[in-house]
């Protein structure tokens, strides 16, 4: 992850850490049964602050990253150590393109340098600069980087799961467990405040409203709903799946109730 941040150092203001790394940074103290460590790095790119130079593809190659041959999709990079990095641009800001366009069209950057992705708009609005350490304690490097906030991460994860719901083999229980991790780490009211800010910002309002509708059905309807069940299953054999599922549903219901009150 630090390798990727280093590669895009000149674009630092446009880069937001999302995905599991961001969840870990936001919830490091939440007591759950799954280990947080992950070497995958997901980065959201904000086209509004992305400079023309250096070109993203050139910066990545200069830092030793190459297009990941395993996926063959735009925005997937990997370095010689096998560290994968995904560069993603929120769909509504990713330039022209039809429903089948996968690469972000942000000239002069290469059309395969970054991938367009649904639901990431919120991560550009809800983020703060945090100190990021290497996963390996022996690595002394420290970076200041924008990290997505908990509300934005919930929106992004909701889109990721909702988009895959019709192809269950692509659903990853860990994504749901990351949502559970955020819900138990944050008190309802501050989390609701984050959602209120997202709903009030033109960039993220539509995405966030859509995510809340999905959360109503996929999370808050009860412990048998898709996301609570996935979150619980992620702890099978380690923790207590039923407790995780019920907690996920109850805390989502609390959040939605708080938002309806305001």
């Amino acid at each position, binding site marked *: 992850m630090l390798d990727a941040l280093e590669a895009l150092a000149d674009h630092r203001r446009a880069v937001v850490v999302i995905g599991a790394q961001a969840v870990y940074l936001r919830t490091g103290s939440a007591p759950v049964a799954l280990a947080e460590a992950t070497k995958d790095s997901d980065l959201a790119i904000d086209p509004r602050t992305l400079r023309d130079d250096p070109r993203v593809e050139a910066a990545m190659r200069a830092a030793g990253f190459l297009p990941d041959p395993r996926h063959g999709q735009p925005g997937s990079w990997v370095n010689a150590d096998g560290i994968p990095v995904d560069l993603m641009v929120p769909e509504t800001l990713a330039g022209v393109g039809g429903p089948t366009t996968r690469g972000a069209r942000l000239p002069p950057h290469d059309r395969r340098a970054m991938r367009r992705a649904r639901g990431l708009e919120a991560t550009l609005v809800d983020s703060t600069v945090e100190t990021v350490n290497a996963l390996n304690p022996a690595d002394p490097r420290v970076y200041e980087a924008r990290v997505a906030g908990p509300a934005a991460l919930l929106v992004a994860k909701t889109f990721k799961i909702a988009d895959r719901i019709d192809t269950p083999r692509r659903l990853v229980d860990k994504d749901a467990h990351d949502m559970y991790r955020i819900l138990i780490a944050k008190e309802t009211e501050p989390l609701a405040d984050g959602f209120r800010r997202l709903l009030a910002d033109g960039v993220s309002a539509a995405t966030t409203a859509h995510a809340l509708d999905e959360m109503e059905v996929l999370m808050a309807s009860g412990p048998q709903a898709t996301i609570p069940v996935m979150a619980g299953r992620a702890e099978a054999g380690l923790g207590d799946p039923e407790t995780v599922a019920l907690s996920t549903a109850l*805390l989502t219901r609390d959040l939605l109730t708080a938002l309806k009150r305001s």
Partner: protein
Amino acid sequence: MTMEASMPRNGAELLRRAVDALLARLPASWSLRPAPNGAGGDRAVDAVFTLTAPDGQSAVLLFEAKSVVHGRDVPGIRQKLATYSSQVDNGHGVLVARYLSPQVRAGLADVGVSFVDTTGNIRVKMSTPGFYLADRGADADPWRGPGRPRGTLKGAPAANIVRAVADISRDWTIRELVQVAQVSAGTGYRVIDFLELEGLATREERGKIAVPSWEKVLRRWSEDYSFTGDGRVTRWIAPRGLDDLMKRVARTESVNYAITGTIAAAEWAEYAPARSAAIYTANAERAAADWALRPADAGANVLLVEPDTDVPFVRTITNSAGLRLAAPSQVVVDLMTGPGRNPQEAEELMEWMKTNERSWRTG
């Protein structure tokens, strides 16, 4: 193993059934036969048999039959059988009884007395010839009828006395004990009589009562008391998990409570991360509201118990996090009778209690 349903009517039938029980389990190459007259030495011996090994070595089994055996009878029985066997070449005493409770069996095994009861509890062990036979029968007296009430440690007064003699290390007069345990004198006598009958308390000179083993008293109590069996149980979920719950509990003081189970035990002997919290409280609904618990069935991670007695709230301990924990003597019995791995955790805590007696027992 099969067990005859009717109660043995007399000593002869008791012995017949005991010998049958041994024969049924004896390896084919061994034999057990009535010994010739006079082989038993002492004429008070109830029956004498010869046990013969495949290599021809043999022992003389000297049977002592008793209908009922209490814990306090064990030392006398051991003495009697030792006297019998000392009068006979290669003699080996065996106690035969209608039924032997788990405590009595443990007591007999501790002092090396072989026994057979008619429900199939067997432990016969000797070195010449090398022989060991053990089996498990009933853990409750199948012939205990309504006409023969058996004492128990059920109920609040017994709980108070058990906890007092476990928590406080001293010899007691009845007057002191009933005062500390806050029970009536009559009840105090009844409970002490029962402990004495079970061999768990002894009367010393000048009426002092001694309790040689707090551990045995607690184990005996666990047969009559359990965390979920002696109070109103409700199930809840702390949706942000147990660490978050503990912070909330430490912050609120409105309702009387005492944490027990795995979380309390971890204060003294950590065994495994807690999956659920077990908490005594005087008012479950109010505690749940204070601690942001929600009612839950599947997925519950908190058990609240409104106890029938106040004894769980007696001699509680406040830890460095500001949490009120039930006393170790309470926690260990709750774990003994709890679900899942609780019984193993109880053994772990019991070991700690034995090694660190001075840090939790007051004198």
